[in-house]
């Protein structure tokens, strides 16, 4: 979440010497950073860079173990490509609605921002719902978390992704609530943008998972 960097921390970037000081009203100036870039945005991109290593490890584990399921169903028996294609499409479209939310936030249109944020959350929830349905089906077909190396790896990878989506949905809904009560700490457009970055990242991880896990035959 956004650190209230602006009021919380005011470093005058240019050292005032004596007289030409900031006065009380001026310390609200966006603190000019050494790079000119926002602290929060830098932090978010760093975080997303680190998440590449996280999901890379989970994807690699899956790719290594996808074929190890002696005596129990494997990908070929389980996948419902049409269903997963539709849910992938839904998640992809949620990225679009997220962009529209950011756009609305940059135009200072709170109502429209909230609308698109809510639609994004709804699409995300639909995706998660489809996954829950999918996993439940697999479970009843005899593939649980502990069944085989393939299943442990699959549920871990998609589970981590699903948790990330869920966290994203919670953040989106919280943001809707905060915006509607006009209590956004810091730059509202930036907060929406940064949550948007997180959301898109979760989407691109799914782009990779959908291809590598579902579309490439084991």
């Amino acid at each position, binding site marked *: *979440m*956004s*650190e*209230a*960097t*602006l*009021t*919380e*921390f*005011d*470093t005058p970037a240019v*050292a*005032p*010497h*004596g007289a030409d*000081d900031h*006065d*009380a*009203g001026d*310390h*609200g100036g*966006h603190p000019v*950073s*050494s*790079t000119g*870039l926002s*602290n929060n945005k*830098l*932090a978010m991109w*760093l975080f997303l*860079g*680190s*998440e590449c*290593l*996280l999901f890379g*490890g*989970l994807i690699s*584990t899956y790719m*290594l*173990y996808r074929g*190890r399921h*002696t005596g129990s169903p494997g990908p070929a028996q389980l996948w419902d490509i049409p269903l997963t294609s539709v849910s992938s499409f839904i998640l992809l479209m949620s990225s679009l609605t997220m962009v529209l939310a950011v756009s609305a936030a940059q135009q*200072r249109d709170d109502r429209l921002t909230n609308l698109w944020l809510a639609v994004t959350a709804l699409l995300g929830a639909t995706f998660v719902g489809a996954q829950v349905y999918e996993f439940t089906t697999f479970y009843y077909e005899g593939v649980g*978390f*502990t*069944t*085989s*190396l393939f299943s*442990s790896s699959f549920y*871990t990878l998609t589970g*981590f992704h699903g948790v990330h989506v869920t966290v994203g949905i919670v953040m989106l809904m919280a943001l809707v609530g*905060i915006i509607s009560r*006009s*209590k*956004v*700490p*810091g*730059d*509202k*457009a930036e907060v929406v943008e940064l949550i948007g970055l997180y959301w898109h990242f979760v989407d691109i991880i799914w782009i990779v998972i959908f291809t590598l896990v579902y579309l490439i035959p084991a």
Partner: protein
Amino acid sequence: MAIVERPSTVPAIAGGAAPTFVGPADAYGAYRRPVTTTGWRSWLFTVDHKKLGLMYGVSAMIFFLIGGIEALLIRTQLAAPDNTVLSADLYNQMFTMHATTMVFLFVMPMAAGWANYFVPLQIGARDVAFPRLNAFGFWCFLFGGLFLNTSWFLGGAADGGWFMYQPNASSLFSPSNGVDYWSLGLQITGIASLTGAINLIVTVLNMRAPGMSLMKMPIFTWMILVVQFLLVFAIPVITVALFLLMFQRNFGAQFFNVDAGADPLLWQHLFWIFGHPEVYILILPSFGIVSEVLPVFSRKPLFGYKFVVFSGAAIGFVGWGVWAHHMFTSGLGPVSVAVFSVSTMLIAIPTGVKIVNWTLTMWGGKIHFTTAMLFSIGLIVEFTIGGLSGVTHSVSPSDTQQTDTYYIVAHFHYVLFGGAVFGIFAGFYYWWPKMFGKMLNETLGKWNFWLMVVGMNLTFGPMHILGLQGQPRRMVVWPDKLTGEGFFDLAFWNLAATVGSYLLAIGIFLFLVNVWRTTRKGATAPLDPWDARSLEWLTTNPPKAHNFDVVPHVHALDEYFHMKYEEVDTDTGPRLVKVRTAEELQAEQEANADTHIHMPSPSYWPIVLAIALPIMAYGIIYSTLLTVAGGVILLLAMFAWALEPSVADDSDYDPPPSGEAGKELASV
């Protein structure tokens, strides 16, 4: 004098035509921010990087002593053949926890302490980019470390070695909860490292004083920057490994179940892809400290600043390509082994560059053999020895003989103790006056140093022989009948190593005595006792809460030095002449002090959020109910953090003593 205003309730947000602002009066319910500046509460809720740095340092030193006791127990067990001081089971726990403690609970947090305290000062900033996140990171580290160590009392500590190879450390072969404490504890401390890394990178990139380009930053700050990048990318890898381990042990996943088709090498790859950058994470901060100390006590600027910077970055970069040298005997196959062998040889080069630059810094300089300087020179010597044995490991055929023997133990203790720890101690003696306003006693310091040098060489030197003669690592006993004769009488060398470890312990004890005596009656330190070069010395002892009365404008590398000295032409050529003293510079600062300094407010939520994590961790081991309870605290604390006002309400402060409303004087 600087006037630090009580954080203002005037809306002060930029960001657009219609800013919204969470005034403290609008804050949801109970989210008032703490206001105390003294007492235990001011430590518990602080977001001040200096206080957090001190807390990191004190906690790390306590873990150092715990890890040290674990080491002494190991050495006592190995002092004589077939010894019975420790049972085999306890011995396994001892070496596992010794290493885990030293790596994760001492060196890493100690470096975090140095970085937290001094990076903002060195770049001319007043705090880090995300002060609450900083506090959160510290409490995560502390609670994670404490959680990990409660395993001693709750069924036994982890016993699979600090690298926890699978399937040896699975529930089948390691049934106690120790490994669970290990995996969960390190997840918690990992969060500290990751958030700290993001924080420090943004701080260094974004909060440098005007005029301080990246190539004008002190080397310590540069090395810390490289380390944070290593952390940001390495921690997620071990996070994956630890999750797989946790799912395996606590939820029945199959990841390391060989019967189900698992490959034990998966763990090794994941662990060492983290583990090798990790060793550079451990050493680079000390390289940075030494790069500060050597020029100051050679009365010369660092030789080849650019080379030292680029070699540090190169070490960080190439360090990602060598991890499988920890796996040469694991069955990787000749092609992989050859590739990693070559890459490992390559990484010696940038380190060698640093050694050369440090040596050339001293060459022709006027050396002052203060304790800080002794530890720095000690690092160069001891790390070189450790580096040389490291190069022998890179040759995979010879590593095949060396691996899992005491030769490896010798190598990494030379580089870690002679490298990382010596650098940390150099930091103590160098920066103590700035942090505490007192000088550590130099006589005691020299005894401290020499006992540590003799102690460490006596402890770890013989291990080269022990290893090459075949004594394996991680064995609870060594049998008398396998010891040789004469120079290769391993019984002698084992005993020598044990004696050395006790000498080491005495050396460290002397350091603690030094600290205690200095605290009670140490000499008051001047502002700039060493006539140093970097900006952290442009402050009071200790620095004021807001660090600098005036944020300096930086014109050169070693800016502080150039504030004091000017080059003057004389008959004998250009000479450096001191034109201003530290005291004069400080007085100038105070005379021109900023009058509207706003410092970040303390907060309850970092520590509350942090405490949720060990609660959830205990829940994973014992009861899902606890995990749920911890999860609820986690969620609530996150929301509270996000929604709390950025400042405390006016009414929460005591009325100011003087008539001026809304202002309070800067606390020194």
